[in-house]
């Protein structure tokens, strides 16, 4: 019963940086996904040109989406601050989308 050569030892629970369900303080980059992969996968499958997506691809998409949500919330908040408000409103989001190039793909999609 020799150990498989070259294999990574099974991580001890808690020893690794992040385990399932663990929530590190602040959105550290190396955290696991919070968005359920099944829902992300459903969106991926909605594309008729896509045949298959690896689990890793779905995972990276989920994480990317989380980073996107953080980014757009922060960018929209700048406009709320300009309006001296502590509540983020829809118009703040519209302003961010209009002003920021990376969000151009969203134009016309949120109505």
């Amino acid at each position: 019963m020799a150990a498989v050569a070259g294999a990574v030892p099974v991580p001890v629970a808690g020893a690794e940086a992040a385990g399932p369900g663990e929530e590190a303080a602040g959105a550290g980059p190396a955290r696991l996904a919070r968005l359920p992969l099944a829902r992300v996968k459903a969106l991926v499958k909605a594309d008729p040109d896509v045949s298959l997506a690896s689990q890793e691809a779905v995972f990276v998409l989920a994480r990317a989406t989380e980073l996107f949500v953080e980014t757009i919330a922060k960018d929209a908040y700048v406009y709320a601050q300009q309006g001296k408000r502590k509540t983020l409103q829809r118009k703040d989001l519209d302003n961010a989308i209009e002003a920021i190039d990376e969000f151009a793909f969203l134009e016309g999609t949120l109505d």
Partner: protein
Amino acid sequence: MAERPEDLNLPNAVITRIIKEALPDGVNISKEARSAISRAASVFVLYATSCANNFAMKGKRKTLNASDVLSAMEEMEFQRFVGPLKESLEVYRREQKGKKEARKDKDKKADSEEQDKSREEENDDDDERMEEEEQNDEEEVDN
């Protein structure tokens, strides 16, 4: 059941939590804004998928992989996501490997075959395995 892709929403509670953690304490978000961000997130997934798929097709592959998604991020001008995403992916791969090792220990018969494979294609192996599992799911859906 949602029919249109744009109607496939991500869970509100999770989206809300991500937004709240990104903003300073004491900042609120209106229902309309939260709902719009949620929708934007769905559109993001759809757009990123389409972009990633182009890279897969260029590579003559039918399966989207992680690096296709990373390439899509660069294409979409979200390069600053790439670093953090790679780190997350490393953690995810280690976790998946741990799970796989646990499965291997149970299935001793397959061990000798696995040894040769895992030496050459440590990373690809996981992907392939996932593909096989995916295929079982995909068989019913004709895309």
